[in-house]
């Protein structure tokens, strides 16, 4: 017999975990929904997902290949991994925030609200995987050096995903209280992209500015993600330690903030 007593509730952050376990099929159903809805009405299916990064890749490569020939030879191979991971970050945080702020399902049905963010994240990971596989194929055809360092990709993706989930939850918490958080975020995102070495090689940044790029956590994840794909090197242990620490801290903060305010949400019209 399931019992509930409002006077004996566990801490919200833990209660949410128990709720997620009780709604095990929800995550799967939501991811299936996201993927189906995305591909249902399009003749080209998942090719649309590839279109945006592919277009960016072509255009940006045309613009910068020569400029960065010395600092980032084979520029498209440098650019593509960064674009993929940045898109994963930008799209997941945006979709999470907008879905959480725009949805009123939870005012009607009781379910763990973090499931919306987690399912958006998993959908993003799925799309990222759909991007990485052709990327590796293209790199192989172009005879870029590829090797055992690729084995670090799943770890890097997992750590990035944890960071992105934390960031999504922090953002969603803000978006639940204030209507202008998501518009401001979509305005900030393009600017933020330029504070990480997505389009340009980190080497061209003046020495006085370079340390500031480190303030954008995505710099770390993008470099670790790109290393095996572009230069067939693994990120060092220090990078992994730092990525893990940032991912855990962000996720913990996001989880606490979000689950703490989730009860208030029903009170906001």
């Amino acid at each position, binding site marked *: *017999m*399931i*019992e*509930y*007593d*409002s*006077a004996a509730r566990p801490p919200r952050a833990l209660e949410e975990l128990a709720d997620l376990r*009780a*709604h*095990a*099929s*929800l995550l*799967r*159903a*939501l991811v*299936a*929904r996201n993927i*189906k*809805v995305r591909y*249902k*009405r399009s003749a080209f299916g998942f090719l649309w997902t590839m279109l945006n990064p592919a277009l960016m890749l072509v255009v940006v490569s045309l613009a910068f290949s020569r400029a960065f020939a010395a600092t980032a030879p084979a520029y498209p191979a440098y650019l593509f991994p960064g674009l993929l991971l940045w898109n994963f970050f930008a799209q997941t945080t945006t979709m999470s925030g907008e879905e959480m702020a725009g949805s*009123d*399902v*939870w*005012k*009607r*049905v*009781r*379910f763990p609200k973090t499931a919306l963010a987690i399912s958006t994240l998993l959908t993003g990971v799925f799309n990222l995987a759909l991007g990485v596989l052709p990327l590796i194929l293209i790199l192989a055809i172009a005879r870029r050096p590829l090797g055992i360092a690729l084995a670090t990709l799943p770890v890097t993706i997992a750590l990035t995903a944890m960071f992105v989930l934390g960031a999504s939850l922090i953002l969603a918490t*803000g978006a639940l*209280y*204030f*209507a*202008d*958080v998501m518009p*401001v975020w979509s305005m900030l995102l393009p600017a933020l992209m330029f504070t990480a070495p997505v389009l340009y090689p980190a080497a061209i940044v003046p020495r006085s500015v370079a340390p500031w790029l480190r303030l954008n956590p995505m710099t770390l994840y993008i470099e670790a993600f790109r290393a095996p794909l572009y230069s067939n090197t693994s990120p060092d242990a220090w990078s992994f330690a730092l990525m893990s620490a940032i991912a855990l801290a962000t996720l913990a903060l996001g989880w606490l903030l979000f689950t703490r305010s989730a*009860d208030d949400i*029903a*009170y906001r019209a």
Partner: protein
Amino acid sequence: MTSPIAHDAAVRLDGISVRYRIALDPHVTLKESIVRWRRRRFVEHVALDDVTLEVAHGEMLGVIGRNGAGKTTLLNVMARVLQPTSGRLRMRGSVSSIIDLLSGFHPELSGRENAYLRGAFLGVSRARMHERIESIEAFADIGRFFDAPLRTYSAGMIVRLAFAVTASVEADILLIDEALGVGDAEFQTKCAARMAEHRARGVTFVIVSHDVARLQASCDRIVWLDQGQIRALGDPVEVVGQYAAAQHST
């Protein structure tokens, strides 16, 4: 009014209050909140005021009252969608609610896919949904549309699908907001039959409705809410009589 609380109650509310703080000059943006922080003024709206109530296992409790009396808020609290401002809520048994019908549905997905999705929102496992899907399809009785996108449905078909999914959930406590209205007469008969099945299994019901006569006929007890407080609670005929008298006098 506060009857001694039985140990086998399915739902127990002790002094439950729900108070909304409504900003007179609502700040919806971060910018406004920062700029005008000091000038916030609020009025308090009390949706539920110190409600103490218990529902026994297998009981059918009807909730009546005017619009804005707190009926839906009461259901929302029991469904744990809304966390009360104060008071204690205890529930024994799994809870499912038919407070609204449409949330969780996606227009691009088929009826079948939406059934799985809504089942997942309601906490039903995928394996369970596999077992149920045929009976859901039969109950909804919308023919080929079951595999067509929801956006092609009429309003009535959406309601039938939603009710079919929700009615298939096996919960110990069912919370129903009947103000929704569920389809044509034939479908209503089917819904009533399904509810009778649930009742025979010992499911506890809490039903909000404007159809006072029907509640009087089917419920074990009726609670009359007025401005967030319990005005009367007990025998259906008595409470409905008092309610009707009050309606006429105003």
